[in-house]
């Protein structure tokens, strides 16, 4: 089974997001970087499926050269190969990203045969465009289900569970298939020492994409106004219980 996972490098903000002075982007000077938890689950699922069914898993990202860090993290978790589509900017419009990823898949599949599964996150953590996976699947003429929280591959059919507000819906797709997955699908592993050593030495394949325009251009970012009312401190331990119970009464719970 050949599996491809697509991930996006994003800043990892703490309790407050600080913007650059011109408001064009997040001030990342003091931030680490990560991928969406959805994508972490996609990576974990790819590693598990490749182990269970035999085969290999590849991780791909379109981003700055520094996005190699996210590819190596995925390799440390057990992914076999890393592919970087290097760009000069932090990010591209989702339509441009999808078409560049589609081109890269054509290249990779021409060399080594089709991927049975393409895995995406349900949405990227920062932009939340909810579309890159669907665009790639459509361009390749493959079926896609989003919101996936369960995957089972039996006899060339992928049975997936999609989370909906009151439970799950079940879908059955032919291979090759595309899935946009959500956190909760599995519990991503913490990379072991050996994985991290392998990742350090792994060669990352570079496939420079052809620049293109997408149609959606960021003008500026803004933090919504938040009215900060001072917090009322009820106390420091057991003796705060009556005041807290008063609140339960005030909101009608008691």
């Amino acid at each position: 089974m050949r599996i491809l996972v697509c991930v996006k490098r994003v800043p990892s903000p703490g309790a407050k997001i600080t913007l650059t002075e011109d408001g064009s982007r997040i001030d990342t000077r003091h931030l680490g970087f990560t991928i969406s938890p959805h994508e972490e689950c996609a990576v974990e699922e790819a590693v598990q499926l490749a182990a269970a069914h035999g085969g290999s898993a590849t991780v791909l990202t379109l981003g700055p050269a520094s996005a190699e860090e996210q590819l190596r993290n995925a390799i440390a978790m057990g992914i076999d190969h890393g592919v970087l589509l290097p760009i000069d900017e932090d990010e591209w419009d989702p339509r441009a990203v999808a078409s560049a990823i589609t081109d890269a898949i054509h290249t990779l599949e021409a060399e080594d045969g089709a991927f049975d599964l393409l895995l995406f996150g349900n949405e990227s953590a920062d932009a939340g465009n909810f579309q890159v996976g669907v665009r790639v699947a459509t361009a390749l003429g493959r079926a896609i289900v989003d919101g996936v929280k369960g995957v089972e591959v039996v006899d060339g059919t992928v049975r997936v569970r999609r989370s909906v507000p009151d439970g799950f819906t079940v879908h059955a797709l032919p291979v090759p298939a595309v899935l946009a997955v959500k956190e909760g699908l599995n519990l991503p592993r913490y990379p072991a020492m050996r994985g991290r050593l392998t990742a350090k030495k792994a060669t990352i394949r570079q496939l420079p994409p052809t620049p293109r325009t997408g149609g959606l251009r960021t003008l500026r970012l803004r933090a919504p106004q938040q009215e900060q009312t001072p917090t009322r401190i009820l106390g420091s331990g057991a003796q705060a219980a009556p005041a807290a119970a008063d609140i339960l009464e005030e909101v009608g719970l008691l």
Partner: protein
Amino acid sequence: MTTVLTLIDHPDGAVARTSRETLTLARQLAEQADQPLHAVALAPVADEVVKELGELGASVVHSIEHPSLDADAAAPAVAEVLRQLMEQLAPSAVLGPASDRGAAVLAHLAARTDLPLAANCTAITPVETGWELTRVRWGGVLYEDAHLDAPTALLTVAPHQVAAAPATMPATVERRVHAPVLDDDLHVTRIVDREELSSGVSLATAPVVFAGGRGMGNAEGFAILEELAGLLGGAVGCSRVATNAGWRSHNDQVGQTGTRVAPDLYVACGISGATQHWVGCMHAKRILAINTDPEAPMVTRADDAVVGDVHDFLPALVEEIRTRQG
């Protein structure tokens, strides 16, 4: 004259709240462009729904009739119907709610037409070179102003950011039946089965949520939150640290990649209040934080706080509630 086309959900014979919000934004766009507002709905469309659509300003409702387009319909099939309507009506914009289905359908429509799509919008205005719009990023903690350059604007509307409001002049609605011809391939991802979650108080709609984070210490630490939720008809929530540690199921996770809640009271126990958690609980009417750290963002943003150890405070709260409940 071209139109503004809006996909709507109408479960249980009423227009869904997110669809009413979407229609409100779509109507503002239609008024600015001096174009009629059309709604698209899967059949059967109840008379009540048609009436509501009129109140919201739609002059035409396209009722889509096809045996495969029921509650189990596949997103690409619904998207293909919208694409056919686009060919027929040449709308200036197509909008849908950023609900599970709306988000998927609009993404498939964008892919099938190769048009740009702006997800989770809160405002849009036509400008000379296209549109200027505002959308939410990071699950709701940041707004982005963006320029959209496209022959037709495709967008989904973020939930609960636009206040749904009826039109000043309700429209008389014309119902048009559209019976599309659809390729079999479009139905491949149709729902083949459903699994209901065990009933009980659901996290998303509970009046009170007792949520625990790293500060609860371990899985057993959550027993007292279960007890509190049980006493008050609430639900237990958690942070991603609790999920990742295997203390709680992901179904309990509140936040950007978990569930969004808006209870009357959110009790955050041993949760620091990272942005990705905060977006999941910020719409609670009132927030009570219990944390040993008075500087924790959850404490400084909460309405009320207990600065102390959850293990000291929560048992005392249980006692106090039991006494008052008699």
